[in-house]
């Protein structure tokens, strides 16, 4: 066993990469749930985004176009969910589960020709700044999408806290009947939130297939969408807590991989489950203050009068 092989700087830099898919998916779902909609299809939208992004990046040679396609792909799949739940008034839980199954199947169909191909490489956002010792690899040594993820978290936080649009979104999630009575377009706002959630999940999926792994295999999101759903709940629907939770999860994941490589005498199975356990434990403690789920979460809205 040789713990000195673990480099803390590289550890921090790689945990940020490991956390980003989860972060993107969770912040999207946070907005959806704040609008009062429970979309369990995150996993399906992520994997759809993963293959859309991968295919377009391979075909065009441009990772940026790939990410745009991933966002569009995720959003397109979420349109299905929006139609089912907002207009056909279908049950949100069942529709979300169906969306995940559909997304998994659709992605393996689309991905048949792409197994074993390497995607074009995504460059670092700040180039030479990444070579500064210690802070370089942590702060500047990453691809553009990682920074976009953090900006989205900051943007969502500011939107919910400071803007009228955010207030209206929260109001719709809190009490859709009251929001309707005051003349807000409940369905329109919810559809927009669902589309945003789909786009974010798509980006998260493409981050796995284009940067984290990077290649295409079936089912490669491996449950990150479900972790994202749990993360939103345990983060008490607060954006910065989602960031903390995602980085914690990423950190423990990377750390346990390093520990495995260093040959620590703990069975691999325990190491492999540790990110899930620790993340849930910490977030449960964080959320102990008050459970503030949006009061209309998961309830179907029908303007009866």
């Amino acid at each position, binding site marked *: 066993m040789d713990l000195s092989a673990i480099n803390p700087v590289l550890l921090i830099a790689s945990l940020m990469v490991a956390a980003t898919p989860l972060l993107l998916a969770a912040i999207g779902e946070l907005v959806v749930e704040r609008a009062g909609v429970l979309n369990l299809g995150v996993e399906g939208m992520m994997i759809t985004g993963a293959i859309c992004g991968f295919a377009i990046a391979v075909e065009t040679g441009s990772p940026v176009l790939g990410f745009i396609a991933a966002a569009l792909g995720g959003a397109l799949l979420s349109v299905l969910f929006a139609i089912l739940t907002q207009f056909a008034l279908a049950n949100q839980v069942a529709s979300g589960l169906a969306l995940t199954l559909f997304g998994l199947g659709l992605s393996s169909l689309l991905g048949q020709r792409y197994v074993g191909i390497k995607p074009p490489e995504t460059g670092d956002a700040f180039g030479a700044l990444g070579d500064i010792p210690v802070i370089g690899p942590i702060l500047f040594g990453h691809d553009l999408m990682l920074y976009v993820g953090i900006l989205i978290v900051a943007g969502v936080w500011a939107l919910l806290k400071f803007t009228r649009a955010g207030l209206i979104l*929260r*109001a719709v999630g809190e009490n859709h009947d*009251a929001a309707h009575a005051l003349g*807000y377009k409940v369905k329109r706002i919810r559809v927009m939130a669902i589309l945003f959630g789909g786009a974010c999940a798509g980006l998260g999926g493409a981050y796995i297939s284009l940067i984290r792994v990077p290649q295409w295999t079936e089912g490669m999101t491996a449950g990150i969408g479900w972790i994202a759903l749990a993360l939103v709940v345990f983060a008490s629907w607060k954006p910065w807590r989602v960031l903390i939770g995602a980085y914690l999860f990423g950190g423990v994941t990377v750390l346990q991989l390093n520990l495995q490589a260093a040959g620590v005498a703990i069975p691999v199975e325990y190491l492999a489950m540790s990110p899930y356990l620790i993340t849930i434990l910490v977030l449960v403690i964080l959320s102990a203050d008050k459970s503030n789920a949006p009061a209309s979460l998961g309830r179907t809205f029908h303007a009866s009068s």
Partner: protein
Amino acid sequence: MSVLLSIKGLTKAYPGVVANDQVSFDIGEGEVHALLGENGAGKSTLVKMIYGLVKPDSGEMTLRGAPYAPPEPSAARADGIAMVFQHFSLFDALNVAENIALGMEDPPPMRDLARRIREVSETYGLPLDPARIVGDLSAGERQRVEIIRCLLQDPKLLIMDEPTSVLTPQEVQILFETLRKLSSEGTAILYISHKLEEIRALCDTATILRLGKNVGTCVPRETTAREMAEMMVGSALQSPERSGRALGEVALEIRGLSAASPSAFGTSLKDLSLSVRKGEILGIGGVAGNGQDELLAVLSGEIVTRGDAVALHGQPVGALGPAQRRALGLLTAPEERLGHAAAPDMSLTENAMLTGAAREGLVGNGFLRWGKAKDFAQRIIEAFDVRTPGPENAARSLSGGNLQKFVIGREVLQRPEVLVVNQPTWGVDAAAAAAIRQALLDLATGDTALVVISQDLDELMEIADNFAALNEGRLTPPRPTAGLTIDEIGLMMGGAHGMEVAHV
């Protein structure tokens, strides 16, 4: 007085029912105009059309002579129409200022808004802290939020739907001062209420709707409450009769009971004692949210306590669940009709089965006796004049008043030994309310002990023998209703909760 809003031939039909049929009337500048009618007479639809939530099929409105047809509520607000809703319009998890901002077209930045909320609340004697979370406020305070939300927009017409149902008599007086002051400043008020005495005290004119039609106007000050009620119903009204009756031994007793509320925004009961004798009706008043729901839950068995805290005929029942208490003759009818007293999507037969199973013998050897259950539902429908095509209809399909008659009738027909009802006539029109009160009185004549929890003080004065008030989970000692004045009742209910009269 010049005309502010003129309504001509407004008609709105829904599948199977004409909610408004050629309704016409005028509201003058600064006039306090009452809109009266039974449940289902079309009052809500009419104000929703004025507020832009519903589009009329035909007819027109003019506002200060100009055509007025708001496509949505924001357009109505822009034209100076504001509305205080009966329910459904506040957001529990948001604070006061955020709630108010949501109801405004073009809210100022939060800090300015908070300052303006303080100004307006002081001007009109409605103290309110903009930073508080609405879920923590009392019913009266929540209403202040709605009123201030409207006042901040300098409305020309303020629509108020049943505003006083959650207030103590003192709070009602203060609200009326605020409304009179607004009216004297030129704001017209369209006031919907079931409480005819309030309308007589406050309103200049009243328009009466029956089955969607305007059936007449009157000047409330010159009309008796009884005449107005008869115009609403379209026939002579029967007042409940109470016959002198001797009270028997104690049927139900609670001693020194304290119980925590199961909900986060509820009120805990604190050292509560009461006793009811056979043939007695004990009326329990108090502003909503002072422990009424918890008291009902303690009596029904939804909250279990130590055994001897609740005694039925001297026998401890505090630790028993609802089904066991029902078998012993302690029946309850909760306030919330849909979801608590009745399962909305189940048929009336199924709903009759749900509480009547034990006492009416609707279950045998673990099997349901559908035939008997249907007969029982049919008996309730006939005895209480529930208007529905038949017992196979879903509870949800009944109007509020009809479902209330069914829910009360279901318990009354099970020959209870003790019956506890919460808000027996809430949202029920005058004729149906009179029928329900008469049924409760008849039950008492038959030696049943009744506990009637209600926010309608007139109702309690009319039927109860003794009156006690709930205030923050504590129950006052009961006093005989005969000779009790409204001021004394108000003080028992806790006075004016820190409100003061408008002072500008």
